[in-house]
């Protein structure tokens, strides 16, 4: 049975389609404004007349590739191609500026391959059990999860917590423009009809990261406008693999976080990569150096968002509840091939579901050679372009991406406004990262908080927000996350005090 499925999955034509799908996905993922959902739904009509296995694998491998593709733009240009790649910029971009672009890109690749493979393996092995577990997350748990993601702001803005929190708050405030999630009433729209549609996330991120970045690069004198050195970094591969082995704890934890959060419908990639980044940073002995070019940061973010792929398919295949929109489109294809989600998928005698999962595993592994020999080599060429040409090119690409999200100049207007605003904020020391986190996580937190309050009111006790087993764990993690920077600085102060008398004696 398993052998039949393996034979189906390694047929040369199947392998070729998986490879094409993976590369196509990686390219789409790298283009800001183009999402994997767009790519796979555009291909749906092409897929319908195909053999079910081939059809599902084309969609699955695009999904897998896209989750990796967003990393390179994040590292090289500080542009998160999708919201999930936001934490990849935190350490990836500083690495590129230090001439360690190759190392960062290889780390993103290694993380994606590892996370992707683990995600699919978990999907294959625990399918039913984990799907049941994912249902135990109610609105209260989702709320605490997003709060946990938001505590990353505290970690990101060490040294100036006030400015970090101001940035996060601003991001949340901007995300509230539009219709509120419960009453559907327009908020902060200032009677301007376009604002009713809200601030679309991707144009906003393009503005905050890409336009603001271009504007500040114009500040520096012409001599400094040379691109950062790519660096030969002949030992980059060895270094990255070494880190992977040495920091197996990061790999395992990030994969687990990716799978778990991927399983939760509506939580998705950005929360997975943010929480994974935050946890990696917190458990690190030298957590303060995160944000300055720690390769572990890139590993954490990319491992988690590829592990999410397998995770998001768990509740879809076992229960018919897709973990995110990508999984929903794949569910649509699954149904149109006459396959029903549920445990019967595995035991229906066709072996297609098993072959699909094996194909996904192959897709995640194929990423390694495909990206190493093609995608990374192509991407790195970007850095050889002089900044004088690169800046306007980036602006054009970003504008096209922003336009495509809304199919109107409204997207470009959002991008321009947040770009100029983001540049001004940068000048007064408020960085894009906390604002972006607020924008991404704010709406989810608000929606789930509203739901939790409504349920609390119906049950007659506000304690229902906290007094639930999973909630309690999450609240504890939030507290830990907020307290860690404080405890660390207290420890430093104690240490200094202890050292101080000694040095006096020596004098």
């Amino acid at each position, binding site marked *: 049975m398993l052998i039949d499925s393996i034979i189906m999955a390694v047929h040369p034509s199947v392998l070729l389609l998986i490879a094409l799908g993976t590369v196509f996905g990686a390219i789409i993922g790298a283009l800001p404004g183009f999402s994997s959902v767009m790519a796979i*739904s555009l291909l749906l009509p092409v897929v319908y007349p195909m053999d079910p296995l081939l059809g599902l694998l084309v969609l699955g491998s695009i999904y897998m590739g896209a989750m990796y593709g967003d990393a390179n733009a994040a590292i090289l240009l500080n542009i998160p191609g999708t919201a999930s790649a936001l934490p990849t910029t935190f350490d990836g971009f500083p690495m590129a500026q230090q001439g360690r672009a190759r190392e960062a890109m290889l780390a993103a690749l290694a993380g994606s391959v590892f996370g992707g493979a683990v995600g699919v393996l978990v999907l294959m092995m625990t399918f039913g059990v984990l799907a049941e577990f994912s249902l135990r997350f109610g609105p209260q748990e989702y709320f605490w999860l997003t709060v946990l993601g938001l505590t990353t702001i505290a970690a990101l803005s060490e040294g100036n917590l006030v400015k970090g929190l101001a940035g996060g708050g601003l991001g949340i405030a901007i995300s509230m423009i539009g219709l509120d999630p419960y009453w559907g009433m327009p908020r902060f729209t200032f009677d301007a009809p376009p604002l*009713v549609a809200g601030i679309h996330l991707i144009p906003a991120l393009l503005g905050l990261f890409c336009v603001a970045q271009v504007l500040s690069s114009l500040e520096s004198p012409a001599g400094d406008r040379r691109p950062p050195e790519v660096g030969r970094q002949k030992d980059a591969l060895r270094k990255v693999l070494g880190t992977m082995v040495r920091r197996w704890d990061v790999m395992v934890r990030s994969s687990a976080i990716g799978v778990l959060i991927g399983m939760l419908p509506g939580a998705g990639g950005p929360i997975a990569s943010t929480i994974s980044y935050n946890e990696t940073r917190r458990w690190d002995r030298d957590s303060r150096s995160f944000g300055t070019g720690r390769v572990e940061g890139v590993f954490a973010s990319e491992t988690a968002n590829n592990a999410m792929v397998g995770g998001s398919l768990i509740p879809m295949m*076992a229960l*018919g509840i897709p973990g995110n929109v990508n999984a*929903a489109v794949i569910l649509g294809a699954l149904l149109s091939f006459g396959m029903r*989600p549920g445990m019967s998928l595995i035991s229906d005698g066709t072996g297609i579901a098993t072959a699909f999962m094996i194909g996904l595993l192959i897709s995640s592994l194929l990423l390694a050679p495909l990206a190493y020999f093609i995608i990374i080599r192509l991407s790195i060429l970007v850095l050889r372009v002089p900044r004088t040409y690169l800046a306007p090119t980036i602006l054009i690409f970003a504008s096209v991406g922003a336009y495509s999200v*809304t199919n109107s100049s409204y997207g470009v207007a959002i991008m321009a406004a947040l770009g100029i605003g983001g540049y001004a904020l940068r000048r007064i020391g408020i960085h894009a990262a906390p604002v972006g986190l607020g924008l991404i996580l704010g709406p989810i937190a608000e929606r789930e908080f509203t739901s939790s309050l409504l349920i609390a009111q119906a049950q007659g006790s506000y304690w229902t927000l906290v007094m639930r087993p999973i909630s309690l764990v999450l609240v504890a993690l939030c507290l830990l996350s907020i307290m860690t920077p404080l405890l660390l600085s207290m420890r430093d102060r104690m240490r200094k005090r202890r050292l101080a008398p000694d040095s006096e004696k020596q004098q």
Partner: protein
Amino acid sequence: MSRLIKTIGVAAALIGASVVQAAAEFPEQQITMIVPFGAGGGSDRVARTIDRFWQEETGQSFNFQYQPGASGAVGTDAIARAEPDGYTVGIVNLPNMIVQPVSGSASFALDDFDYIGRVNSDPMVLMVPDGSPFNTLEEFIAAAKEMPNTLTIAITGTFGAGQLAALQMMDAADIEATLVPTQGGANTAARIAGGHVSAGIIGLGLFTNQETGRALAVSSAERSDFAPDVPTFDEQGVTMDMALARVIVAPDGLPEEALTYLRDTLQEVTESQGFIEASREQSLGAVWQDGDALEDAVMSGQEQAARLLRQYGLIE
């Protein structure tokens, strides 16, 4: 940008006209289909299915344009404002489109459109989790009467089919419950299956894919072929009439020739065996309703929806 598209469109039309000698008949160029939601969503899938059989029928495919935002209000507005030449149509949801003008989230009105036809209809089901103490609608209603507002009902979004169905049920059965909106159908299903709410309202199509949970009632007039075991609300003494429908509309004032062509072709597509089969695969019931009947249904639907929303204080 739009000028560029127009230029390309004109060029394409010229080429098309020179190839096809009989150039006087509608359509002379490709028709644009506006989808007011993101690519890959439920509306997109229905639109793509229409496209597939439209191509079989006429040899022509649609040019898809996605204009998401404000639960579809942005794209629906774009349809209303398009040139009424028959070359722009759009797929919209009922009852969302009916409610948006009265809830203040849209700048269009229902008479800004020419109605081409309804293509499908997805009734709503009241679903409870596996471990629920309620086995029938009657038990659910009795409990809700005993403890007003303590039962929670998950619904998808605001001012959508789920919310209206919930309000209609509360009104008809004379009960009070707390409505808990979630972000998407999958999310609502997960909330119900996990037992985080007492019950929830989701589309029948989504329900039939579920492994867990059971349905207490379905909002259609008759039992559905997809779930023949689920009794209707009417059978159990609660008068209901609510479904999530997908309809095709165009801006108001289409030339007669274009309107007739679009209506006739859509009817042929919707009633074709292929379309019915493909809809069934997506657990959606293909239901044809012609433009005039649809327009009447939409207008009377708005009165009813406005009355319900006003009664529950959701609009002024």
